[in-house]
C-alpha cells in the first residue's frame, strides 16, 4: 500500500463577509498518497484555493487537523511552517510567479540551492533546457509555467500543490503543462493536488 502524504481531517474555514461569516470549507476530509495526482475542480469562490492554502501550510483551519507525512502540523508555530514548506512542499502558482531578476535556472539554484546538474536534468525532462540562462521576461507563458513546474519539483518535497497552473495558458499549452506535472508526479512518486476552475483539466 502506498504511503499517505497528506491528510486533511474535518477541515472548517469561515471568512468575514460583511456583517456575517461565510463558511467556505465545511467538514472537508481529503487524503493524498504517494504517486497520486488529485484534481479539485470547481467554480471561482468555492474555496479551492483556501483548501490548497491550508494544505500548503499558509493558512490555519478554524477547525480540523492537517497531517503531513504522518505528523500533525496544524498547531506548529509559523517558523516551523516555513521550514516544512521549504522541505516538504513544492508550489506551482497561478501566473508562474517567477522572480524577474533571476534567470530560469537560477529560480532553482539560487532559491532552492539545487545543483546545476539537477537543474539541467529537470529542464531536459520538461523540454526547456534551451532557456536555462534566460530571464523570465524573455520567455513565453508556457515556458515560464514549465520553469515554475521545475521549481516545484527541484527539492525533495513529497507534496506538490498546484493552484490554477493553466490559468494563464491557452488550452493546448495548459494541457501540456498538466501532463508534465502528472508525468513528474508519477516519475518521482510524489503526491499532488491541483485546483482549477477549468473543467477540462479534470479530463486530462
Amino acid at each position: 500500500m502506498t504511503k499517505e502524504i497528506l491528510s486533511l481531517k474535518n477541515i472548517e474555514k469561515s471568512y468575514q463577509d460583511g456583517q456575517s461569516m461565510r463558511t467556505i470549507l465545511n467538514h472537508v476530509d481529503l487524503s493524498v498518497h504517494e504517486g497520486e495526482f488529485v484534481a479539485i475542480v470547481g467554480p471561482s469562490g468555492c474555496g479551492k484555493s483556501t483548501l490548497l492554502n491550508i494544505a500548503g501550510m499558509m493558512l490555519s483551519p478554524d477547525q480540523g487537523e492537517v497531517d503531513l507525512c504522518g505528523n500533525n502540523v496544524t498547531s506548529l508555530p509559523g517558523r516551523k511552517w516555513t521550514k516544512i514548506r521549504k522541505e516538504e512542499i513544492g508550489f506551482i502558482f497561478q501566473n508562474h510567479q517567477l522572480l524577474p531578476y533571476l534567470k530560469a535556472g537560477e529560480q532553482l539554484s539560487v532559491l532552492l540551492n539545487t545543483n546545476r546538474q539537477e537543474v539541467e536534468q529537470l529542464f531536459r525532462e520538461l523540454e526547456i533546457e534551451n532557456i536555462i540562462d534566460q530571464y523570465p521576461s524573455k520567455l513565453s507563458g508556457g515556458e515560464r509555467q514549465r520553469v515554475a513546474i521545475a521549481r516545484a519539483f527541484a527539492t525533495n518535497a513529497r507534496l506538490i500543490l498546484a493552484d490554477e497552473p493553466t490559468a494563464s495558458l491557452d488550452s493546448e499549452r495548459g494541457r501540456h503543462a498538466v501532463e508534465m506535472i502528472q508525468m513528474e508526479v508519477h516519475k518521482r512518486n510524489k503526491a499532488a493536488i491541483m485546483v482549477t476552475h477549468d473543467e477540462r483539466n479534470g479530463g486530462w
Partner: protein
Amino acid sequence: MKLGFRELRHNWKKYLLIEIIVFLMMFMVLFLSGLVKGLGRAVSSGIENMQADHFILKEDSEKLITLSSLSKEQYEEIQNEYQDKATPLDIQRMYFQKNKDAEKENVTYFAIDPDSFLNPDVYEGKALSSKEDQVVLDDDFASDGIRVGDTIIDTASGIELKVSGFTKDAMYGHTSIAYISTDTYQKIMKAVNPAYQETVHAAVVQGNVKAKIDGTEHYTKAEIIKAIPGYQAEQMTITMIEWLLVVITALVIGIFFFVINLQKEKEFGVLKAIGTGMGSLVGQIVSQVCFIAVFGALLAACLVVAMSAVLPVTMPFYLQASQAVIVLAAFVLISILGSLATVIRVAKIDPARIIGGDFQ
C-alpha cells in the same frame, strides 16, 4: 544576501540613480565635515598643535589667554614648580607689512621661549632661535609671496623682523600665526607702549598640574580651545548641519527602499510561500541597503580626498581619517536602522493573501 545582489545587478539602472543621490549627499556631508574641522582648526590649530596639556592663567581671565596676565612673581613660582615642563606664552593680535607701502596683514603673534617645547617644527628655513627680531610664519603667508630671508615690518612698532622659516597649520582666531621669541615680543610691546610692564599672558605646562598657585587658575587644552571667541558657536552650528545631513541622507535611503520594496510585495509573498525564512529576507534587504550606503559613502570619501588635495591653502578644510570614518559608519548604521521599517513591512506580508487564490 545572494538574492539581494542578484536583484541589484538586474535592476542596476534603478539602483544607480539611488546611488548617485546617496553619493552626492554623502559628498556634501563629508565636505561639510572637513569644513567644520577646518574652521575649527582656523580658530585653534595654534593651540591644538602644542605639545602641552595644561595652561595656567591669571584668575578671572575667563579661560582667555589674551585676557590673562601673570605677574613676574607668579610666573617665577610656576617656573620653580615645573622647571622645563612650563614655558611662557603671549598671544597678541597685530599687523605687519611686507614693506612700508604694502597693505597691512593680520597676524597673531605667539611669543614663546625658542628653547621650549612650544617652538614649532618648520618645513622650510630654520626653526625660531633666541636671536632677536626673527620670526617663523604660518605657510599661509608663503602664498602671499613672503620667502625665507625676507624682512617684514611690525606695523605698530616699526620693528623689522627677519623670516627664518615657515611652519604649517598654525592659526588662531582665523588669523595666521607668527612665532616670535618672548624677548622680541617685549621689544615690540615696549616700542608701542614705553610704559609696558613685563608680564606673561600664560604658562603652558606639559604633564599634570600640581598645587594651585595663588591668583591663578589652570585649564586643559580642550577648555582653552572651547573658550576661544566664536569657536563653540561656529562648531555647534556646522556640526548640527553635518549630522542633520547624515540622518536625512540615511532616511532618504530608508524611504527609497521602503517604496521599492512596497512594489515587491508579491515577490516577497512568493519567497515566503516557498519557504524562504525571514532571516534570509532580512539579509536580502539589509545587504542591499548596506551595499548602496557603503559604496556611496566610499565614493564620496574618495572624491572629498581628491578635492582636498587641490583646494587652495587659504580654504579652511581639514578632514581626518578618523573623523570621516565616524561620519561614514554612523551613516551606514542609520541607513540600516532605516531599513528596519521595510523589514517590519515584509514580516507582515501574508503569502496566502499576496499569492491570491480564487477566494480573494
